[in-house]
């Protein structure tokens, strides 16, 4: 049982360390950096002049589809990193390579499908 508990303990420690590692760079500047506030500091930055009209408008669908294509590869990278840790046995090098390229290939099919459907062609 202790075997499993230490596993979870390790995972918990990793989680906490990751969280702290993320929070520190955000909190530290609040304490250490000087601050300055001017009249226009919190206005949106648009080349130095005030913005005209509101930006709450209906954007075209192609922006959304482009974002989706990015997400496909994002997920792809998310899975490749842990795999790289696991596939370290030198006897099955070729098997690992095929498995990995299969995985990436299937994801790439999604891109080909989007490409063929004309998502990349900017209509508007």
């Amino acid at each position, binding site marked *: 049982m202790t075997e499993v508990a230490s596993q979870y303990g390790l995972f918990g420690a990793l989680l906490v360390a990751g969280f702290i590692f993320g929070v520190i760079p955000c909190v530290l500047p609040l304490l250490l950096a000087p601050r300055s506030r001017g009249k226009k500091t919190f206005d949106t930055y648009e080349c130095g*002049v005030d*913005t005209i*009209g*509101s930006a709450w*408008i209906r954007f075209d669908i192609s922006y959304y589809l482009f974002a989706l294509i990015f997400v496909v590869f994002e997920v792809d990278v998310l899975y490749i990193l842990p795999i790289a840790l696991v596939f370290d046995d030198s006897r099955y090098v070729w098997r690992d390579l095929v498995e990995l390229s299969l995985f990436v290939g299937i994801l790439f099919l999604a891109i080909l499908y989007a490409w063929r459907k004309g998502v990349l062609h*900017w209509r*508007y």
Partner: protein
Amino acid sequence: MSSVPGPAMELVRDDEDRETYYLNMGPQHPSTHGVLRLRLHMEGERILSVFPVIGYGHRAHEKMAENRDYLMFLPNTSRIDYLSGMIYNLGYCQAIEKIMGIEVPERTEYIRIIVGELNRISSHLLWLGTYLLDLGGITPFLYCFDDRERILDILDSISGSRLTYCYGRFGGVTMDVDDAFLESTAAFCSYFHERLDEYEDLVTDNVIFRQRTEGVGPFSADLVQRFGLSGPCLRATGTRRDVRKDEPYGIYDRLDFEVPVGKTTNGDCFDRHTVRMAEMVQSLHLIEQAVRDIPDGPVMAAKVPKKIKPPAGDYYFAVESARGHFGMYIYSDGTDTPFRIKLRTPSFAHVSAMTEALVGTMLSDTISILGSIDIVIPEIDR
């Protein structure tokens, strides 16, 4: 909201309109080449209408001309279009010389050709570097500026400044050139010939550059006439018009050079690029001829009136700057201070043409078109 006549009628956006928005490609923007503000009315990536707001670089050159006498206004002229400062400076001198009928010695004419064309090459080099920076290519900027520094060294050695020259005087130039200057100029010309071929292979035949410029922003002959464009933008549409050929000043009529014209006559960004590259080659020919046959002799006219008092009346004199037809409409009332000097600058017409040329293009093409017409802001706002 204002409305601009013609097809670029600005669509006034009322509040219920949830499809379109305004975007300020504003005074502080990396690809407006200075403080030009374009108020774009856009839908998605497409531009419905453009309303350029200028005046952020207005420095009152013309009011200054009315406060200065003719000689005191001279240093100011190279700050109007600081990329072709030498051409503007010498142009102003040639204008006053023509009005006052001052004869300039032969050697000075040749010197003016050499430094003027060197200045044109340095301006085109800066345009090439920043245009490719706009299109995303970072390294050509460094190569072009490296070559440009060589030209600035040559011009610096005789005029003392790198950018805003005051090398011309009424009746001649301030410093005579020595053999070292002529040798370094000749060395630069031979060096720069292969360099231009390199640029041709690296840039002109680059596939991405072609896709971003071919067919982008074509200028029709009608648009060119209604806005009065000049310089490389006009020549890209196929009209062979150059002030150095049509209204020759100095000794341009004695030297032979051609006026390059765009290959395809729809005057798009790629044509403007090829015209400027060919112009650099022509400038090199001009410099080589001038360096070869420059005679000896004085560089300042023998008799120059102390006080310049042009006879009353209005005069017009134009030179071909790197951007196009730069003209000075001088109205003199006989005193030594000009009554009015109107500076007719090429970029003023080019930016006003943007109200029509950018309509319907995508934002990335807008940056490509704006970069291809090579504007200098104080020249627009004066």
